[in-house]
């Protein structure tokens, strides 16, 4: 189980610190797939990366991350090393480019395992078995990345990332660059691996709420470096309480909705700059429900079991 409390990560820039994660607390239970969604720049990818490796310009400011009762030393690059791959693993945004183009896939995987002090040969049968589960034949190990389609590469990287049965897997926009058919296969693969216990819990970072509605047990919505709402998937989709979640869902075209018949509204404006974020509710400027009280920052509180929202009006209209 993963528990994150009051995590703060800033980016160092010439203009000052960009507060990409500004005090984020949540937990993911064993066997849970948590979806993490929001607009670009909301901090969702930063959160995913922070749990495994801080980039050079990312700065740990505060907070604690616990995985299976052990505190993850996320601020210490060296101390994190034993946890990476074996306890926490990631499928990066462009998994396609994570593969070395000059190596056959099998050899690349062997080299990678050797670097970790493991024998490629002993893990080979398991590797082939898992590839088969995702519909890939052992032949792919003898191929170069260029010979595989984007969806196949994505699945290869998934098998590789989870080979040591990590406790937590972060899947960062793994379906975004794929077309519908491959997207569905990768989505199915995520659920399959969780069901088989190869990964205990997962954070699926994406801007595609429709995919999350298919695979996630719970969905967490972020806005401008803060949490806006977290609830079981059905609640988020059918009865969202935060105005931002509602607008986000309302702007999704679905097969069956036509411009001629129903013009979908967008969300006016842009998210605020995180160099000097506004005080109070950060969604205030774009929110149709904003009132005086929104000048104070709304707490992220539970309005129903497992349903947390940061909005002053959430209570009233969740019931009404």
């Amino acid at each position: 189980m993963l528990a994150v409390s009051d995590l703060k990560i800033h980016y160092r820039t010439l203009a000052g610190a960009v507060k990409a994660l500004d005090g984020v607390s949540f937990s993911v239970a064993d066997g849970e797939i948590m979806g993490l969604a929001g607009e670009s720049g909301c901090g969702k990818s930063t959160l995913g990366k922070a749990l495994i490796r801080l980039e050079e310009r990312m700065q740990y400011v505060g907070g604690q991350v616990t995985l299976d009762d052990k505190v993850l030393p996320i601020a210490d690059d060296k101390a994190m090393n034993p946890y990476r791959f074996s306890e926490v693993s990631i499928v990066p945004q462009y998994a396609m480019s994570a593969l070395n183009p000059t190596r056959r896939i099998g050899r690349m995987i062997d080299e990678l395992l050797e670097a970790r002090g493991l024998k490629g040969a002993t893990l080979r049968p398991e590797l082939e078995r898992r590839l088969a589960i995702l519909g890939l034949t052992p032949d792919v190990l003898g191929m170069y990345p260029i010979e595989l389609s984007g969806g196949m590469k994505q699945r290869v990287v998934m098998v590789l990332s989870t080979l040591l049965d990590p406790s937590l897997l972060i899947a960062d926009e793994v379906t975004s660059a794929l077309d519908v058919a491959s997207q569905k296969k990768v989505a199915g693969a995520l659920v399959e691996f969780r069901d088989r216990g190869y990964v205990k819990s997962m954070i699926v970072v994406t801007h595609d709420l429709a995919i999350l509605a298919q695979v996630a047990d719970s969905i967490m919505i972020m806005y401008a470096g803060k949490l806006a709402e977290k609830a079981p998937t059905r609640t988020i989709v059918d009865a969202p309480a935060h105005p931002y979640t509602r607008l986000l869902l309302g702007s999704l075209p679905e097969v069956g909705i036509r411009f001629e018949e129903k013009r979908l509204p967008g969300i006016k404006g842009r998210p605020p700059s995180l160099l000097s974020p506004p005080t109070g509710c950060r969604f205030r400027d774009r929110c149709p429900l904003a009132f005086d009280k929104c000048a104070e920052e709304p707490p992220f509180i539970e309005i129903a079991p497992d349903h947390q929202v940061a909005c002053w009006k959430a209570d009233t209209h969740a019931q009404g």
Partner: protein
Amino acid sequence: MLKVENVSKVFRSGAFGGKKKRVIHDVDFEVKPGEVVSLIGESGSGKTTVGRMILRLTSVSEGRITFDGEDVSALKGASLKGYYRRVQGVFQDPFSSFNPIFKVGRVFRTIRREFLSDLDQATWEERLTGALNAVGLEVAALDKFPHQMSGGQLQRLLIARALVLDIRLLVADEIISMLDASTRIDVLNLLGDLKRQGLSIIFVTHDLALGNYISDRIIILQKGVIVEMGATDRVFGDPQHPYTRSLLDAVPHLHERWSEEELKDLGLVADTARFGGHLIEHRENHLVRVYS
């Protein structure tokens, strides 16, 4: 207006161009004024290549493309310029269409120099303001650098750039795939408004929901072959070709969750491609490929 007549595209590769690969097979369709036609397919289906042939960014190997009866491949010099006054494209990555060291207004100055140098300043400014207003931007936006604007704003600027030319056809190639859900819909609604004013649009996408939202007609491409085409409600409401059906089944819906079998079904959609056969009229305004 635009007719794509039995067009094929053959790419050559290898040291002396000895290997041939046919990526578009006998594609045939028409776009009428004020019509939005979606070209839908997976990666490698040839949808982008069709768009690029219409924009003359790549040559046509067989067949021909005509605009108002004129063969597009034969255009040169002034007549080609005339064609680009009427037909323009906008592409997937808005950031790659702008030079990051110059302000965004530069693309408009280039357009004026190349195409509209005969306009006097007042008429030009009027036109520019009109085009910017049509996409919901202020003239002040021209004084910004690309990094100061969002992807959606840049994409709208590029549409405005096409609009100052009085275009009649816009080829929009995956123009919203890189945008956020919240800004996506703004750009889509803008295309819808422009269509109402008589602009024809070829909307290239792999996203069936977006194609469905905006288009009058849908063309489904599989490995360079049209497998099904017709009015949007017919193709999506009553899909006939197994490929169209499998694509529609793979679209995730918000309020309807796939069953466990559906989700874990690894049925390899793309491998069902079959060449040959011919398009027949299933019913009015709905063509389906059948194999005898």
